[in-house]
């Protein structure tokens, strides 16, 4: 007997609203369907009404975890349109904040994986140590989450000597702790039993479904925008692309832990070789007409911003492709033939940031399946009429009513 159950939009495993329509046969998933659109914020329309300077802060608020990724992606694109070169020191500081962000995002993910697997202590410990990175970020940028360190033409704050030594000292503790989590996360039998062998995504499938980031790298494909298409000064920094060949959730954990170590090395390199000089170049407010695509390796995968300018203070179009969106097709493939118990782990393994990926909502009539364009007033009228006609939902009614 197979039954179809909606997991979400509200479910404890999902931190943000999304609907996973699952078809089960006993405890085994036979089919999965992802429905988006519960968290649409109209951001792309908002970009069009704001100037480039204001848009830095709006792009920052696309995502809470990879806030720096989105601003850097946007700012890099705008600088490409302006045709200016930012000071070396500025690009190093951007990279530094970006890597610190990757560290905090990956530590956060480790904790979330522990929580989804019911390993609360792991969750508590990783999040406690994540505070070290958060403190560094707060000290160097002025805020814990939205660093707002980017500006067009450079960065807004400099790293001074005391901060430099403090970050280097904190890195030692972080390295030690991450080494412990590496042992714990990859050898603790009850945790490994939950992670290994679930959510299998073979190499060919990962490529054909266009997955990005650690999900792709766990399928043994060394693709990283930082290596393949270096932005900022990544071509000067030595680092390796971390991969794993197990193609499962354990592999994704291993990739993220390896990346943590790579990030520590990059941060150390940056701090030891921080070039002197200005941190900001003078830029005009108006951007010449043109269009560009900017790529950035966010902690979750490749982030793409498409910017079209028309010679004014405001962009004509800004399209955001968040990494989570690219990983959805792979998630459906991974979920098939898994257990109910593995849904939260498989879904969490792509590190979903649902509202980053929400770009549009289509209102459909559930009976006819026809899409319509409605103004807000029409929608209000429709809802009033709907509840007038459907006074009480009868017992044994199945959704859609």
């Amino acid at each position, binding site marked *: 007997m197979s039954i179809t159950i909606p997991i979400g939009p509200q479910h404890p495993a999902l931190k943000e609203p999304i609907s996973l329509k699952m078809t089960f046969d006993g405890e085994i998933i036979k089919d999965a369907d992802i429905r988006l659109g519960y968290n649409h914020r109209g951001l792309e329309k908002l970009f069009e009404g*704001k*100037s480039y*300077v*204001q*848009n*830095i*802060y*709006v792009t*920052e*608020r696309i995502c809470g975890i990879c806030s720096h990724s989105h601003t850097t992606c946007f700012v890099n694109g705008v600088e490409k349109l302006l045709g200016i070169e930012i000071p070396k020191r500025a690009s190093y500081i951007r990279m530094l904040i970006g890597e610190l962000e990757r560290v905090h995002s990956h530590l956060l993910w480790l904790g979330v994986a522990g929580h989804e697997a019911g390993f609360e*202590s*792991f969750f508590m*410990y990783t999040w*406690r140590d994540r*505070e070290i990175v958060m*403190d560094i970020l*707060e*000290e160097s940028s*002025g*805020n814990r989450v*939205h660093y*707002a360190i980017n*500006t*067009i*033409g450079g960065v*807004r*704050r400099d790293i001074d000597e005391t901060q430099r030594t403090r970050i280097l000292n904190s890195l030692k503790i972080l390295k030690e702790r991450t080494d*412990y989590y590496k*042992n*714990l996360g990859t*050898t*603790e*039998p*009850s945790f*490994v*039993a939950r992670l290994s062998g679930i959510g299998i995504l073979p190499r060919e499938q990962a490529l054909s479904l266009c997955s990005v980031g650690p999900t792709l790298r766990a399928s043994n494909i060394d693709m990283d925008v930082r290596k393949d298409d270096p932005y900022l000064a990544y071509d000067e920094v030595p680092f390796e692309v971390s991969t794993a060949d197990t193609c499962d959730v354990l592999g994704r954990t291993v990739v993220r832990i390896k990346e943590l170590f790579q990030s520590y090395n990059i941060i150390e390199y940056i701090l030891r070789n921080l070039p002197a000089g200005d941190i900001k170049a*003078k*830029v*005009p*407010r108006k951007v010449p007409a043109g269009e560009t695509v900017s790529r950035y390796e966010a902690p979750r995968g490749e982030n793409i911003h498409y910017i079209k300018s028309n010679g004014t203070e405001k962009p004509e179009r800004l399209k955001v492709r968040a990494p989570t969106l690219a990983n959805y097709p792979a998630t459906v493939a991974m979920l098939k033939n898994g257990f109910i118990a593995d849904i939260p782990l498989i879904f969490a393994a792509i590190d979903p940031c649902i509202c980053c990926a929400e770009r549009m909502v289509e209102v459909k009539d559930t009976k006819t399946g026809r899409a319509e364009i409605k103004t807000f007033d029409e929608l209000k009228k429709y809802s009033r009429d709907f509840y007038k006609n459907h006074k009480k939902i009868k017992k044994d009614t199945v959704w859609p009513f």
Partner: protein
Amino acid sequence: MGKKLGFFIPELWRHIFKKPATVDYPFEKLKVPKGFRGLPVLNTELCIVCKACERDCPAEAIEIRTILEEEKKFQMTIHNDRCVHCGQCADVCPTNAMTLNNEFELSEPSRWNMKFRYAYTRQLRKKSDRNVDEKDKEIL
């Protein structure tokens, strides 16, 4: 099951006698670092009403109204309920009249308590300030 069953126990045991990592928040507070971006405040004596902050604020949280043009009386309202604490106003301010202080406990029962009004008369500009203002007009 592997041989490392109970790998975590020594670590847990070590922490049972340690000080908790969590802070008993409302009773003890963490130190706010230097350069924290908290509540935006206006030094009315320095403001020259160039309206750069109003123009660049991404959240439209700053509103400058002219009360009496001839007496140079202005009113600035900072809508702290909309403010996103990005600090762009402090960055663009040519006279450093806008600053962000250390306050972070900003919640209020009503959003109307969060609107800060400053009514002030524009001060005469000094010569040195004028250059800055001219230069920054077209260039950010």
